[in-house]
């Protein structure tokens, strides 16, 4: 059946309306790149773009795990310390047993991440403690463990076998391998959340935990799995950490949390749970990686980077549809109160 011009326009309009956030992000990314490219021609060089790709890929991989926790209406504040702990331990093992190869290290890193994540998951999902307090506690316990193991030591990873470095930074069609891993894992998570029954249940758990319990969707086991998955994502990035950076020490991963949280939230994952898309997270990760390199080119002191990330988080959550409808509802109820005094108003509480 031939499609008329008006039909195409209608479909495009629907697509735009359904994915407003993704398109706005795309426009912001393009404008920011344009500004930066006008200021410095080195911005569009292959090596700079590959660097941005590396940073975005790492943020995205951790972000997938963080997003899987946030869509269940919880939070994982310990991602940075899990990444750092896995990064140091896997680099340490690699330096002592270079014969293990990238496969062995990946296995160790993944299982370590899964164990660290399951500690969080046990306390939040099975015992029902507030996720922010639990993961804030484990954040410092893991960092403390990292400092205990690492001390002031620094592992130089440039002496490792080249197969290790190329596992992350190697190029496949001019694109770093880490971006290809992100693509594969991202497509898998996207397919899971969108097209499988378990994936739809996952979102349902976040949008209404009580209803999901009554419907026997097993919210506790979903939350537990999401923490384990988050730990494993940190495990992947932890293993690749030593391949991306020339040295690994006790401060590894200390800056991960803010960047990832900003990317995930600006990418449209709802902190009220039950909402989020993988393409959004990817665009958020690209935007954050781009910001990091553009700010330097645009002449902003790196001391302001944390302020920019915090600003992105604050703006991203205030622009969520839920926030805006809450404001509109409040406005309506205020007007309603003026009109008919004494009638009940909807509870303006979360």
């Amino acid at each position, binding site marked *: 059946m031939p499609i008329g011009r008006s039909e195409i326009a209608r479909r495009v309009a629907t697509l735009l309306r359904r994915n407003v956030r993704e398109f706005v992000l795309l426009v912001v990314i393009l404008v920011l790149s344009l500004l930066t490219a006008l200021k410095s021609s080195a911005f569009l060089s292959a090596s700079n773009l590959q660097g941005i790709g590396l940073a975005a890929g790492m943020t995205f991989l951790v972000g997938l795990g963080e997003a899987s926790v946030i869509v269940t209406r919880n939070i994982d504040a310990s991602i940075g310390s899990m990444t750092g702990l896995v990064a140091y331990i896997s680099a340490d093992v690699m330096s002592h047993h270079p014969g293990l190869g990238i496969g062995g290290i990946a296995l160790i890193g993944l299982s370590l991440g899964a164990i660290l994540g399951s500690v969080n998951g046990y306390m939040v999902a099975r015992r029902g403690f507030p996720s922010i307090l639990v993961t804030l506690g484990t954040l410092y316990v893991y960092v403390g463990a990292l400092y205990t193991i690492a001390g002031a030591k620094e592992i130089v990873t440039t002496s490792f076998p080249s197969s290790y470095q190329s596992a992350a930074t190697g190029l496949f069609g001019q694109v770093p391998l880490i971006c290809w891993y992100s693509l594969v894992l991202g497509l898998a998570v996207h397919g899971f959340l969108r097209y499988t029954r378990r994936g739809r249940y996952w979102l349902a758990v976040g949008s209404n935990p009580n209803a999901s319990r009554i419907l026997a969707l097993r919210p506790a086991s979903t939350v537990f799995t999401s923490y384990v998955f988050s730990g494993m994502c940190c495990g992947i990035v932890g293993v690749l950490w030593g391949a991306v950076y020339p040295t690994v020490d006790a401060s590894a991963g200390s800056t991960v949390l*803010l960047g990832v949280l900003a990317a995930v939230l600006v990418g449209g994952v709802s902190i009220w749970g039950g909402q989020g898309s993988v393409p959004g997270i990817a665009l958020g990760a690209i935007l954050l990686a781009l910001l990091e390199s553009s700010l330097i080119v645009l002449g902003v002191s790196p001391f302001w980077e944390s302020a920019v990330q915090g600003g992105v988080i604050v703006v991203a*959550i205030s622009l969520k549809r839920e*926030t805006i409808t809450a404001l509109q509802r409040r406005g309506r109820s205020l007007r309603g109160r003026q009109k008919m005094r004494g009638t009940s108003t909807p509870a303006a509480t979360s």
Partner: protein
Amino acid sequence: MIDIEEEGPARQKNAVPERKWMIKAADPEVMWDGLLVVLGAIILIVAVATTSSFLSTINATLIGTNFGYVAIMCLSMACVILCGEIDLSVGATMGLSAAVLVRVIQAGAPGWLAAVVALSVAAGCGAFNGFMISYVGVPSLVLTIGSLALFSGIQQGLLGSGSFVNLPGWLQTLGVANIGSTWVPIVVVIVVVEAVGLVAVLRWLRVGRDLYSIGCNRVAAYRAGIRVNRTVFWVFVVSGLNSGIAGLLYAGAIASVDATVGVNIELLVIATVLLGGIDSFGGRGRVGGVLGAIVVMAVLTDFMVLHEMTTTWQSLVVGMLLICGVIGPAALRHRASRLT
């Protein structure tokens, strides 16, 4: 029906202990306070046994000056957690107020004016948090992570990598001096005054009782006519203001300000409040418990500093205590509910 009627009295008979103190000791909150006292006693005994100078008045003064600014933030954090919210940005607000203080002094303003500006900025930070949380409706845990990054980013942007030492003399006196010739630091007096005020507010004033109602059941509190949003907003303003006071006192005590002021303090504050028996879900807890936890944590921190433990070791210990503070009271309460 019959089962319940038969079982009811029998279970009740089993549950009632013979003596009054047993009823009291079985209360999970009393039990937790008891555990806290035991923990404090153990730390004190170990500290006295291993450190010769621990029982000197100089050390007592040091404990007061080194923990006083944290204690001030603990008192307001107790209110925040009581009404079921969390404020992770206290450390950043503290650092920002110190940064604003030195920047205004550098611009040529007198010290008192700089202090007023710094305190207003801190209260403004709290008002920003409170506005976003209670009027815009953003969950506090994510918003305050964002504002933590925002405020500490502004602090770093203002200070860069420099360190500033020209602080007004009266501020340094306020930070470290004792009252007259006694060994009690002025900071401790500020903490005690604030604590007495907080006890009075929570016990006798309507707004204090409102905090408990909001923490127990927010919707019920709203339906009962409590101004939930306004109360939560002001709690966050007070939290910001107290962080600002803490920042000024800390700057005065250390006599220098750089971009690391206030980093990771929120962990210590939250751990202390939770150890003090403030329920992590809100609506339950007493200022007395928080004061006890403040004493225990102050002694513990001093002990760790005297033994030259690194700050990361300290945060490992404090992180574990935070997890204990989340799990412990809940486990005791669970046990109590199973027994009766």
